[in-house]
């Protein structure tokens, strides 16, 4: 009789104050493809990799580049050779120290072509990386390890965003050699340790008490896989989720019922309609400007997105160097649009096909654009496909207009100007407008090579102004994220970039304290 009582007391003591309630609950809408960071081609994989692993550099919640495994780094006068100095106190979850050789091996692994379907491109700027990836070289020429705590990376050509590329989850540092079954049960050095993964169900992580950045405040973090937004909301209402994202259509209801729990952050994301500048009358800049003047973007933003967006004044969003708050968006002016079309020799009845994927909010945007363009004599046919089919067609140049969006991989103006508008990226690379403008090309290249931050910002502004003037898109808006944080949870913020929230400062309030 005494034994059960004793064990009950032990259990009670263990639970006292802290207890099982110190598990944070987060969710993804679909299962990550892998827990191996080399395969972080999708957002869930990238997000969970950022919890389990470290990178040389990192983004904080505001998207600023901060030290990660590297405490400091420098670039030489040529802008091609970067030297990273590693911290001495970092260890993998199995206790082994993180050394420069692990960094070199991790990078080689990501670039190794036998690792099919991974994400090697963030490391392609390194000298000899492409040759190694293509199987033409046995070593990556640009990687050198002078000692255990230093790694020297030489690039093909100067590239000022390089330290930001090393904050992407694909370049995370993994142990050498990687253990068997690594993609299902990973060993990293990040703030959270892997505990379990039940596919399409939940991933459980536990705090890493030895993390160099300070152990997480909570004991564990469970990431549920919940695809349906209404189910997410139901879980949140019952306290089953620490945070939840609010769908655009639910904005008003949540503002009314959960106001104090809500957080907003303008995203570094573009919602836009790419205009294929290589197709028929769309090659004429006057026609493209006319399209911009013909769409009532302000009204659309209010009705479809409940005002959750900042009008685009170019491709660079607020919060990114080069954003120009003084530039006025294209004004809604159907008369001007008709005049521009007439000047360009376009007769009423011009037929265009607008492609879109199946997202619910895209349907309403596409319909509104269709109506607005009909007012200026343009007949729009909406072509709806799943995302992958739509993109495949657009890459081949088959679409006149394409309603889509762009999430930044890293917060930098270069990530907007170069992939989206440089002629080298026409079609396949992300330049769905097929823009080929020598001036944009030259500005975009100078922007990514200049070592001078002030000069970079000036170039970003100039590039964006030129892009805005050429109107390769119907510029729509930069969406604003809206999340709720549960009253019993504190310390969570919407990250500016998907891998910028590592949950280390998030805590659950003890039962006895009043909720926020």
């Amino acid at each position, binding site marked *: 009789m005494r034994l059960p009582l004793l064990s009950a007391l032990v259990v009670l003591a263990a639970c006292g104050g802290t207890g099982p309630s110190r598990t944070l609950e987060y969710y993804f809408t679909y299962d990550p493809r892998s827990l191996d960071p080399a395969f972080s081609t999708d957002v869930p994989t990238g997000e969970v990799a950022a919890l389990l692993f470290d990178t040389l550099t990192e983004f904080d919640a505001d998207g600023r580049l901060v030290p990660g495994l590297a405490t400091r780094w420098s670039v030489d006068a040529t802008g091609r050779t970067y030297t990273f100095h590693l911290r001495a106190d970092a260890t993998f979850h199995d206790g082994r120290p993180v050394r420069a050789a692990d960094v070199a091996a991790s990078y080689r692994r990501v670039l190794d072509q036998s690792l099919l379907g991974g994400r090697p491109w963030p490391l392609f700027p390194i000298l000899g990386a492409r040759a190694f990836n293509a199987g033409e070289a046995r070593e990556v020429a640009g990687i050198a390890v002078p000692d255990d705590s230093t790694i020297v990376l030489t690039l093909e050509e100067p590239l000022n965003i390089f330290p930001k590329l090393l904050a992407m989850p694909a370049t995370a540092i993994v142990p050498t050699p990687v253990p068997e079954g690594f993609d299902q049960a990973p060993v990293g050095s990040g703030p959270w340790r892997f505990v379990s993964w039940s596919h399409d*169900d939940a991933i459980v992580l536990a705090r890493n008490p030895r993390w160099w950045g300070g152990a997480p405040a909570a004991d564990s973090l469970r990431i549920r896989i919940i695809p349906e937004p*209404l189910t997410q909301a139901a879980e949140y209402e019952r306290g089953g989720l620490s945070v939840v994202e609010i769908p655009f259509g639910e904005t008003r209801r949540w503002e009314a019922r959960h106001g104090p729990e809500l957080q907003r952050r303008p995203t570094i994301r573009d919602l836009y309609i790419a205009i294929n500048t290589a197709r028929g009358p769309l090659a004429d800049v006057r026609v493209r400007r006319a399209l911009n003047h013909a769409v009532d973007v302000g009204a659309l933003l209010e009705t479809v997105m409940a005002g959750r967006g900042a009008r685009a004044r170019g491709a660079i969003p607020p919060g990114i160097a080069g954003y120009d708050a003084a530039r006025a968006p294209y004004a809604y002016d159907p008369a001007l649009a008709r005049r521009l079309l007439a000047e360009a020799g376009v007769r009423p009845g011009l037929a265009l096909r607008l492609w879109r994927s199946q997202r619910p909010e895209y349907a309403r945007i596409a319909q509104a654009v269709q109506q607005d363009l009909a007012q200026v004599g343009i007949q729009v046919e909406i072509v709806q496909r799943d995302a992958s089919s739509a993109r495949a067609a657009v890459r081949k140049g088959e679409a006149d207009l394409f309603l889509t969006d762009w999430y930044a991989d890293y917060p930098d103006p270069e990530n907007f100007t170069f992939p989206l508008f440089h002629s080298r990226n026409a079609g396949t690379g*992300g330049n769905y407008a097929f823009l080929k403008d020598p001036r944009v090309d030259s500005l975009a290249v100078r922007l990514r090579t200049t070592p001078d931050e002030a000069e970079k910002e000036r170039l970003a502004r100039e590039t964006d102004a030129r892009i805005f003037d050429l109107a390769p898109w119907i510029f729509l808006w930069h969406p604003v994220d809206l999340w709720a944080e549960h009253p019993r949870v504190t310390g969570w913020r919407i990250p500016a970039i998907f891998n910028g929230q590592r949950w280390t400062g998030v805590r659950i309030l003890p039962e006895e304290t009043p909720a926020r």
Partner: protein
Amino acid sequence: MTRFLAVRLGLLVPTLFGVLVVAFLLLYVAPGDPVLAMVGERADPETITRLRRELHLDEPLPAQFALYLKDVVRGDLGTSYVTRRPILTELLQRFPATLRLALAAMAVAATLGLAVGIQGAWRPGGLVDRAATLGAYLGVSFPVYWVGLVLILVFAVTLRWLPPSGSWGAVYLVLPAVTLGMRSIAVVARMTRAALQEALASDFVRTARAKGLGEARVVLRHGLPNALLPVITVLGLDFGSYLTGSILTETIFSWPGVGRYVLTAIEKRDLPAVQGSILFLSVVFVFVNLLTDLAYAKADPRVAHG
């Protein structure tokens, strides 16, 4: 009975080969690029070209089919483009969850459906019968998605009796099982009612009553077994479809089953995963149909000998 079984099994081979061909071709007819889905939107063209070569996607269709057939015959459903894991392993990991949900839904459907149906046949036009008929019409008409969300709102959010999602114990099973079983409850109830009424009107039942048997014994012992045939068919078909097609229910309740896997595979253009799933689920479906036929033959010997 043995001959019946042999014939039914022999028919499986051409059926499954047909499924294989259709599954293979379907995905090539569908638009979209699996390689893009695999490496993400921002992969460079060289990586895409190399990958397409290594996955044999640049070879002629018959050659691709031959490669595929060779693997399938050896029991290898291939490797997912997206997760890089063996597809059969991924399906088998998720199948127990789907089976659990299907069995629970079946239990709900059979119990409630039979109870309501028997009550209706026994006391036609009574209050229970009329309410059940109305309920059956509604149960058949409401879309699964709507039913699931309403159940979550009522029982998980408002009343807080049951969890809205997850799969960690019996309480988590209730809402998805009712959602999934809803349609069958209605169909089984209507089927049972009609068949039982017919049986109760037949001569042997009149004889049984004439011999002074109690009403419960007449209905359950003499009427019901003769009314069960169509009900078994319906339950069997529904069970097969639960095992293969509970995509909506699994999505609403975050149930980690095969349906979600198929949905993700389709969305991501994960060609081999979709093909493998179709094949796997076809085998399951055909197998359940076979079991249904056997149960049918057992319940009515004329089927096996006919």
